[in-house]
């Protein structure tokens, strides 16, 4: 009979590829996402509208069915407005999902000083930020431009290559519009998560930035009788960009170019805030 004693042994096996380390953060954050019932349900709900749109596309190409149930004519037209509406609805849902996922990304690491443990390993700050934001980026993509493109492809299947070629720009706008919204949401959520130790407060702040920002912007415009109050209204800025991307006429007074610049400024500010906070040691003066 042999007696086995546990002892410490070093590790001499293979290591994973250096570039893929950020994926570790992605996997763990995704695991957390689906552990939460509320978040899983919300994620599922995000697919309802695209499914509805799918039904709409089908109906639009099967007028006989419509005739059967007694509705006539061209009720549903699949055009740029159709995809604009898709993006708008999914955009709102994306914001909600971010409010749930975002705050829990960095706050738990900060709350108990776990950041040095990340950076004492062959793991850089850039990888950390990429890894954490990838959860948001990929999850939000799954509910915005990816279903959008699928719907576009299905519509193209029904309507034929001519239609697809004429409307290819819509696909491009879908992707670009989604990406800029995802970028803004991700950076904002992570910046808040990095500066606030408690998840709930970070979540509340995110909601506040959106809603109070809107209110504040309106108030400034009314009181000072200027237009630049819209800078504080993220939703408004995004809408301005989207209406431009989807070539929809709007009565808004803000030009798309200004909106783009404003959004870019937001991104830069959030990125700066993030970089300032995500480091291995506290800088104390």
């Amino acid at each position: 009979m042999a007696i086995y004693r546990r002892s410490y042994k070093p590790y001499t096996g293979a290591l994973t590829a250096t570039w893929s380390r950020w994926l570790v953060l992605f996997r763990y954050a995704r695991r957390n996402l689906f552990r939460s019932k509320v978040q899983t349900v919300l994620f599922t709900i995000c697919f309802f509208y695209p499914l509805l749109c799918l039904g709409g596309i089908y109906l639009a190409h099967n007028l006989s069915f419509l005739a059967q149930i007694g509705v006539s004519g061209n009720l549903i037209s699949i055009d740029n407005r159709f995809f604009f509406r898709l993006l708008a609805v999914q955009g709102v849902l994306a914001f909600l999902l971010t409010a749930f996922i975002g705050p829990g990304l960095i706050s738990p690491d900060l709350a108990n000083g776990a950041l040095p443990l990340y950076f004492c390993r062959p793991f850089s700050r850039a990888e950390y930020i990429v890894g954490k934001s990838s959860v948001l980026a990929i999850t939000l993509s799954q509910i915005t431009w990816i279903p959008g493109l699928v719907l576009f492809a299905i519509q193209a299947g029904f309507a034929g290559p001519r239609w697809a070629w004429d409307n290819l720009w819509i696909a491009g706008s879908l992707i670009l519009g989604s990406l800029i919204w995802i970028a803004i949401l991700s950076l904002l959520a992570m910046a808040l998560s990095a500066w606030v130790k408690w998840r709930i407060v970070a979540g509340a702040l995110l909601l506040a930035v959106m809603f109070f920002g809107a209110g504040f912007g309106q108030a400034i415009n009314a009181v000072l009788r200027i237009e630049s109050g819209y800078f504080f209204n993220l939703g408004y800025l995004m809408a301005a960009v989207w209406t431009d991307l989807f070539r929809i006429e709007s009565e808004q007074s803000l030009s798309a170019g200004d909106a783009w610049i404003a959004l870019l400024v937001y991104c830069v500010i959030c990125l700066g805030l993030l970089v300032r906070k995500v480091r291995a040691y506290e800088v104390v003066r």
Partner: protein
Amino acid sequence: MSTTAQPAAAEGVTERPPAAAPAASVIQLEALSVRFGKRDILRGLTADLRGRSIGLLGPNGAGKSTLINTLLGFYKPVAGSARVFGRDITKETRSIRRMIGYMPENDAFISKMSAVSFVQMMGELSGLPSEVALERAHEALFYVGLAEARYRQIGTYSLGMKQLAKLAQAIVHGPKLLILDEPTNGLDPSARQRMIRMIREIRDTGEMRILMSSHLLRDVEDTCEEVLILKQGQIAHYSDLNQERRANRRFLELETYGANGDFVDAIERLGCECAATANRIKVVLADGVETRDVFRLAAERQVRIRRLNFRRDTLEDIFLKAMDV
């Protein structure tokens, strides 16, 4: 960590003689200087440390944490250089970090993760494949003594357990150098004893070198072979404790019952110097005087010698002397 078949060892008072300090250098500092804004925190540190376990001592603000952070690559030196296992800290930061396990002084954990997930994630971030990281996480937690609690969330742990979890994440990826910053902080006596024992075990198996920073001289004395004492950003003293212990043994320390001034006088009459406080007596033996002479005097006076040992400077003496430099 893995299971190996070994014949069951006999229980007994075990004290392995320390192996000779191996030749390869662990940490080399050459005129290392680090600055924060306008303040010089480390000024021109030069040392070559090779022991299995290195102690880092010094008053608050001497630069111990800064030195550790610099070796980890968090700070860039403004002058001079440093090498860990021969690699330059500015040029090969990533590969050095692969070889280091770090146990910070402050709280460092993620509250809602279980210990196993936490240690596994840390292992994966150090490059271990996912299944290997899971296995080693379990092993590390067994090794540090958290076997029963490893599925619970770390936020529910007591302070001692959090320290052990910190240690587990530091060793999971099999580093070559373990950096411990105040490892026994806040631990109660049993937990402290366990931690010190574990550090000694790690030192004795020889697979990992240890750099330990602590305020408790006793802990450093019990575990370290070399000691670096910092003061105001410079090296106040370097000590090889093994050499100190082997050095000239003419200093004797006694604890007695029933001794009075008479006993001390008698020792002094033999030509030895004596210093007595309460019931502790320090004696410098004169040439030709042996311990049996002290026993003889004790026998004559019915003095019970509870404790007797040869003592070179304890670490406390060395430290206090270094502070006055």
